[in-house]
């Protein structure tokens, strides 16, 4: 482990990381957010989902530094007396989980289809790429909204779990196109190189060439893309939840928290919506900055 870390630190990426204060700050923020949300059960001062701990008399308290605030609730409480800070941690967990899950699924789907399209060419390539064109001609959020809406209409009495499933699927189905395009481009370049031809000549099957020879060489850009896409996925999730077709209010993601809090913006209870908004900005900004840095670090032309 130690050796591995040392190797990482000594590599090009490690050097680049150590020379980039932005990347380090972003990584620190992202790590703190991920840590807090992963271990929300232990870190959060309250459990907002344990209804029996809620007190209506504590509802709508402003943040602790306000004269009316209470030190018990650092960032104030919402209309049901839920601690905003704890709700943020639990909410971020849902946002991050949905974000990562949908990115992993879209990477799997996109990379597979892109690899097939690039390697096989012909009608497979034409068909898949036209499909990509169609998907790209719609704004991602519109497609996600459509899928989420259809999903809800198909299963009107669905359980909460299914709501998340629909959410993840809808984000996945809008996200895979980018990976497919990227991987197809790289595959087109790689498949004519000598090592692939050599493998062909020695009689390695097409599937194996794709998996063992081409795939590792096209994954670099995918990594960069995936990092940036995590932020996009989190934002799409928040948008869908904000529009009311995402995470249910009983297990609120950041988007749901912003939506619920939005009702109180006019009446001066700004903290209910502003803090989830800030949290969303923090997470997506730090992940985006990390992605930007990774892109530069992996780009041989900028080295």
């Amino acid at each position: 482990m130690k050796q591995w870390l040392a190797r990482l630190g000594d590599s090009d990426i490690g050097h680049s990381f150590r020379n980039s204060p932005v990347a380090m700050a972003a990584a620190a923020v992202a790590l703190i957010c991920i840590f807090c949300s992963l271990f929300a059960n232990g870190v959060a001062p309250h459990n907002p989902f344990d209804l029996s701990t809620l007190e209506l008399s504590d509802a709508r308290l402003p943040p602790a530094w306000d004269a009316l605030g209470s030190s018990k609730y650092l960032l104030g409480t919402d209309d049901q007396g839920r601690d905003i800070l704890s709700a943020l941690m639990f909410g971020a967990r849902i946002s991050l989980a949905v974000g990562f899950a949908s990115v992993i699924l879209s990477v799997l789907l996109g990379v597979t289809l892109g690899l097939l399209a690039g390697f096989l060419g012909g009608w497979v390539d034409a068909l898949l790429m036209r499909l990509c064109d169609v998907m790209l001609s719609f704004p991602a959020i519109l497609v996600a909204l459509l899928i989420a809406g259809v999903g809800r209409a198909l299963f009107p009495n669905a359980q909460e779990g299914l709501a998340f499933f629909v959410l993840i699927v809808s984000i996945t189905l809008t996200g895979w196109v980018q990976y497919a395009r990227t991987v197809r481009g790289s595959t087109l370049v790689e498949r004519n190189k000598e090592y692939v031809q050599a493998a062909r000549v020695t009689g390695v099957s097409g599937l194996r060439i794709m998996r063992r020879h081409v795939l590792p060489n096209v994954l670099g850009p995918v990594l960069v893309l995936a990092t940036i896409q995590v932020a996009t996925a989190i934002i799409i999730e928040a948008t869908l939840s904000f529009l009311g077709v995402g995470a249910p209010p009983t297990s609120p993601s950041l988007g749901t928290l912003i939506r619920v809090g939005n009702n109180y913006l006019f009446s001066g209870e700004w903290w209910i919506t502003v803090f989830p908004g800030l949290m969303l900005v923090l997470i997506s900004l730090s992940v985006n900055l990390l992605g930007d840095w990774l892109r530069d670090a992996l780009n041989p032309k900028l080295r």
Partner: protein
Amino acid sequence: MKLTRTMTLAPLALALMALGFTASAVTLRIGNQGDALSMDPHSLNESLQLTVVGNVYEPLLTRGRDYKLTPALATDWKQTAPTVWRFNLRKNVQFHDGTPFTADDVIFNYERAKDDGSDMKSYVGQVKEIKKINDHAIDVITTAPFPILPELFTGWLMMSKKWCETNQATKPVDRRKGIENAASFHANGTGPYRLRERQPGVRSSFVRNGNYWGKIDGNVDEVIFTPIGNDATRVAALLSGEIDVMEPVPVQDVDRVKGNAKLKVLQGPELRVVFLGMDQKRDELLFSNVKGKNPFKDKRVRQAFYQAIDIDGIQKTVMRGAATPVALLLPPQVNGFDATLSKRLPYNVDAAKKLMVEAGYPAGFEVKMNCPNDRYVNDERICQAVAANLSKIGVKINLEAETKGTYFPKILSRNTSFYMLGWVASTVDVHNVLYPIMSSPGEGGRGQFNLGAYSNAKVDELTQAIGSETDLKKRNAMIHEALKIHQDDIGHIPLHQQALNWGMKKNIDVVQLPGNEMPWKFIKVNP
């Protein structure tokens, strides 16, 4: 020379005049938290739907500015025998398509309102038969003497027989079974406004009926009704002038709207009482983890639920004071209210826990709660607070809060174990609570909104007697007895009477009726 100049100016002046005329057409834009679910006046007994549709369709008798009975499509009425009422119908009334309104239409509407798919059965449930005397007179025969019949008829709106037949809309729209017809999207009434355009859930527009039989006090020529579900968006629309009138003002924003120099908030008590109901009929609840028995059949469980709800907390924080906790399912403004029964069981978590232990649920149980999220003031938040309250006695509530378009069909088919409902006694008499809400479900709309099927034979019997009793003293004694039995049984869990909060521009005069009706014919937009 002079002449030519005037001649060249004349068209310009005409154009200016024309512009002046079009600009003087008064348009009123109304925003509401929800939409009327259909234009059919017999499909859903819900205040918002009836108040919107009530501008297009009219009843035989209606309520004036003072909420007193006034003639509408009937000019006068009298009781000719204990069970016979003579109604003389207004002559020279035309539906919007020009068809004259006659006694045949009334009889047609009677059949339509008592049809299986109708939600208005309780309004005509007392009627045995309607006889046509001539084109403009009918005799209504009731099954038993029923002195408050005229009050009940205010909620029964008249459609055109001919129009319904031509448009295959002779049966009511029934959303529980997913039945829609032309009456959902089109309308042809006798009312002061006619429907011009209907986009469900988006926008409906209405224009003044030039051929209206009566006088329209207001000056509104065109009404545009827009549902805006999100509280903040609705307030923003009012603040920015995008809409002129909105209902309800979210309780958290009342002060802000009041503080705006161009706006005002019209407040008043509403006749509506919001309460919770429990399935007390099935032997096993549809949505609970208790199998083989129904915990709500045990009065101790119902009482534990009642006493575990922090009603003052809800009143103070969720409703911000815009509600009055009640102990009965009717507010003091309704005839038959009994002040001696207006004391709620105290909020007491320990007593509630004890009751749960006695009933055999020391660890509580799990049950689904159905709740609307765009019908009553802060409905979903109230349910969330109730869920939090009940978790303290070990009851895990799986809250299902949804828009009324899916909520009402669900609970009206009794597809629920634990639900929220709000009720306005539209006759302003206790009978309109006893009969549809507290009586056992049965024929003629009896217990049609008693969705948990609370049943007590004595209450049924008293309700029947209260309907026919004319001696006020005897009647009040029976009302007291029936309400007391229901209260002691904890047939429902009363929550509160909500308050009306309507926001509007300062130059608009509206009449706010306590049943939350907003008749557009009274609305005046001052310059």
